[in-house]
């Protein structure tokens, strides 16, 4: 099931780039006339609470400073858990772009909404629980900050690549850091690394 989903994302991304390749013929004023479902970029990320490795399709929703990435990550091979999968809606805001020769650098910030799938995670509790016995524990909000460095590539299909790193936390951790003296703000961060391929 997981492999199928991963392959689907890969195939979808590849097909999208081929479709987009055909659309390159219709370039007007440097902007591509894309179908709505064709992503502008693909991400591959390590860690960040979206699995050991996550893959995703990225869309620019507002010009090119707000990216929505739909990511799917797995950690099953790197944990003792039988299943440990995450679907994430990752909202990335490029705060300000700085151009230096061929490079573009930007600090970034954002919020990822992560849907976890493992043992005993509930969005809606099974019927045998009384109402509101537990607060849902399937969806987590993970704010992050980081930076990215972009460089164009001389290829038709992949026009550019960026490398990014982010420092993130999670709603539960943040709440405890605010609510208690024991949990320090130093204790709640994790780091992730990723690449974005631009089509």
């Amino acid at each position: 099931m997981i492999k199928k989903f991963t392959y689907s994302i890969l195939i979808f991304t590849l097909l999208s780039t081929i479709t987009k390749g055909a659309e390159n013929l219709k370039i007007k004023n440097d902007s591509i006339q894309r179908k709505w479902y064709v992503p502008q970029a693909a991400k591959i990320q390590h860690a960040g609470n979206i699995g050991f490795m996550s893959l995703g399709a990225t869309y620019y929703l507002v010009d090119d400073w707000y990216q929505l990435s739909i990511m799917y990550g797995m950690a099953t091979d790197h944990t003792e858990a039988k299943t440990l999968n995450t679907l994430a809606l990752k909202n990335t805001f490029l705060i300000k772009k700085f151009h230096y020769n061929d490079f573009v650098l930007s600090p970034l910030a954002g919020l990822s909404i992560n849907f976890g799938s493992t043992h005993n995670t509930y969005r809606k509790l099974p019927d045998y629980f009384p109402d509101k016995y537990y607060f849902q524990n399937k969806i987590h909000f993970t704010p992050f900050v980081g930076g990215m460095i972009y460089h164009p590539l001389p290829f038709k299909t992949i026009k550019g690549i960026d490398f990014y790193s982010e420092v993130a936390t999670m709603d539960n951790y943040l709440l405890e850091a605010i609510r208690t003296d024991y949990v320090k703000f130093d204790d709640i961060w994790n780091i992730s690394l990723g690449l974005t391929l631009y089509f």
Partner: protein
Amino acid sequence: MKKLVLFGILTLICLLPACNIPFEYSPYDIIVEKEFQNLTAKNLTKLKAIEAGKSSFKIALISDTHTFYDEFKEAVEAINTRDDIDFVIHAGDLTLSALHKEFTWFNEIMGTLNKPFLTVIGNHDLLSNGKAIYEKSFGPNNYTFTFRGCKFVMFDNNIWENKNNDPDFEWFKTNLKNDGDYRFVIPVSHIPPWADQYNHGNEHVFNEMMAENNIQLSLHGHTHSFYHGKRYDQVDYLVIGDIADKAYAIITIEEDSYSIEQVSF
């Protein structure tokens, strides 16, 4: 100025990975630092080392620490000041959501305790991959140990988080037997039999086993409020409230009697 900003962003991108910040794959991951693994066995070894020389002893009972880290830390500090307490029992709900970081924070605080401690698993500890984290950090959910002529039966009696399956009553029944001429057999389980997860059938089964085995005292948490009494006219039930109540119970076991005291900190 522009170069300074560029340098700042580059530093952010390139040096972040070099910082001592961990990679995290999932909040539900099964991560237990080596020092916090097999804690039940490690604490039983400590208990064995202090067993000889006396027949009476004192236990401090705490429960439902969840994410009340500040009060929990205070409780540990308060118990540390007492030389007369031999060991501590935690009656379950070590965490709130059973995330690996919550177990780590629990173990860090409990690690400052200057006495041996034993735990049972609570319903909150069974969320997400909590069962696997608990087993890695402590050991089996059901276990027994003995100390100065008494037998303790540590029992996972959670139902709903075990996919609405009944607890392992067979194991419980077998291990409640006084099979070693013990002065007391004391079961410890998170949920008292009259609480939410027990239907009338299971409540009856639990009490029947207690009566059959002449159990005098049973220890619990879960309800977040203190209770001490013979609810069913036979077995003495002690339920300790959550740690935010800023109280723990002291159970003093004498040659052929015991006494209960609630201590505020």
